[in-house]
């Protein structure tokens, strides 16, 4: 079996006296579409920050592409769509195209040819169906369109792993469906490994092929279909929280 893209082992983390993660271990295999769910305050965002190297590891270890996260230099292999992406300053004078171009800052961009850069940006915009809005100001786009631009920004560096933290917050229901379709295309057709973080366990289990339920510790790791077969009580134990799973037809 090939090296997992992400390998987390015995990870624990605390803020002051407050423990947020306890002994979390899991692997993310290449090509998978992983859903990471848990209630608010369950440590999801902290876990993502640790994987991305924004937060320093206190206990345990994380390997990315077989290298310890501390020594991993991201040159576009891993990309990120943040929860905060749509809380940017709406008046910021930048076009959709310019925002996507921000995804190409890693390494030396000085000697890359401009036409090459343009081509990459256009390609990314096409993947998310936003080519017609390329020269529009980012603040003038709708929430769903902005989210697509942020995905394009994450795609432009041609990442192997894309991490999305609550990307559907602030996007209306119609667009959420389209959004999941887009993710599944990225996963199947472009072969990008995805980690999707969400507190909405209902929708996510139908989309992903590997499910992680986190609430300080890892309560469930496995097939989302099997998770769906469980009774509500069992699911609540895995989720580690009283929860009402919204049932849905397949």
């Amino acid at each position: 079996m090939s090296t997992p893209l992400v390998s987390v082992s015995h990870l624990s983390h605390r803020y002051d006296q407050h423990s947020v993660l306890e002994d979390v271990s899991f692997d993310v295999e290449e090509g998978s579409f992983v859903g990471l769910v848990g209630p608010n305050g369950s440590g999801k965002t902290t876990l993502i920050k640790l994987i991305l190297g924004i937060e320093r590891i206190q206990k345990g270890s994380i390997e990315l592409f077989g290298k310890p996260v501390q020594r991993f230099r991201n040159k576009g292999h891993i990309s990120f769509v943040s929860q905060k992406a749509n809380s940017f300053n709406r008046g910021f004078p930048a076009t959709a195209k310019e925002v996507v171009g921000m995804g190409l800052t890693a390494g030396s961009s000085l000697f890359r040819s401009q036409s090459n850069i343009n081509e990459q940006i256009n390609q990314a915009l096409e993947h998310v169906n936003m080519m017609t809005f390329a020269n529009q100001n980012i603040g003038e786009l709708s929430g769903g369109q902005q989210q697509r631009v942020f995905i394009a920004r994450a795609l432009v560096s041609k990442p192997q792993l894309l991490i999305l933290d609550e990307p559907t917050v602030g996007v209306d229901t119609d667009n959420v469906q389209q959004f999941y379709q887009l993710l599944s295309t990225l996963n199947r057709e472009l072969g990008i490994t995805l980690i999707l973080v969400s507190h909405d366990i209902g929708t996510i289990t139908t989309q992903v092929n590997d499910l992680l339920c986190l609430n300080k510790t890892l309560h469930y790791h496995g097939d989302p279909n099997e998770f769906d077969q469980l009774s509500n009580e069992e699911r609540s134990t895995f989720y580690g929280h009283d929860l009402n799973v919204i049932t849905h037809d397949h």
Partner: protein
Amino acid sequence: MLEALLNYELLQNTFFTGLLVGLIAPLLGTFVVVQRQAMIADGLSHVTLAGIAFGMFMQKQPMSTMITPFQFGMIFSIAGAVIIEKLRSMYREFQEIAIPIIHSLGVGLAIIFIALANGINTDIYSYLFGSVAAVSRNDLLLILGTAIFVVIVVFVLYKKLFALSFDEEFAQVSGIRARFIHYLFMILTALVIAASIRIVGVLLVSALMTLPVATSMRVAKSFKQTIWYSILYGEVAVIIGLISGYYLEIPPGGTIVLTAVLLLGLTLLVKKIKSLGRIEGEHS
């Protein structure tokens, strides 16, 4: 003025310095404004004033140094920038507090050193309000060096500065060394502020960094355009302001900034008329 410009070295120095400052102040100003840091220029310009006053005080000492007041101003400005960054990392939840701290420290030190250096004189007056005849050849060369450095750094780091200004978290994840670039940017800002003081004066430096940007943001369609228009508005304000200041015998700080405000007002007015015209067109 053309004849005078050809004949008097001081006027030439001022004019060239004005052109340089009209370029670099709006260039960095664009990044400062979109990061919502417009107040930083005010904070640092007062620290620069403290440095200038300290330089004047040192000149009065029997063991005088080789460093001019203007150079002391630059050194203080850079130190102020470093302290602001330090304060920001200490007060993570109240980052805006760094500017008033540095601002008041600057004013306090300036008052003390101005008093020690025998009070307000014409030199201090020209630093406060700008002057058409205060730039020496050495100052010009120092400002030229600063401008070249600033333009090169912004050119090389453009994408990284842009990404950091828009979304710091994403930039960090992409592998940008955010802290290093922040420090470098603050030092550039400090240098540009110190350089601009020669022309527009301590009290109006922030205006030259923010007014052209405010005007430009109303008309530009992209970030790159915002930068180019800001520089254009900045240069027009400096040129008109310097010439009118010279003829009216008014410190150019006032005339440059008023020109910049006029440009802003005219741009807003034209935009308004255009949008009214468009609405009427749609109705007819």
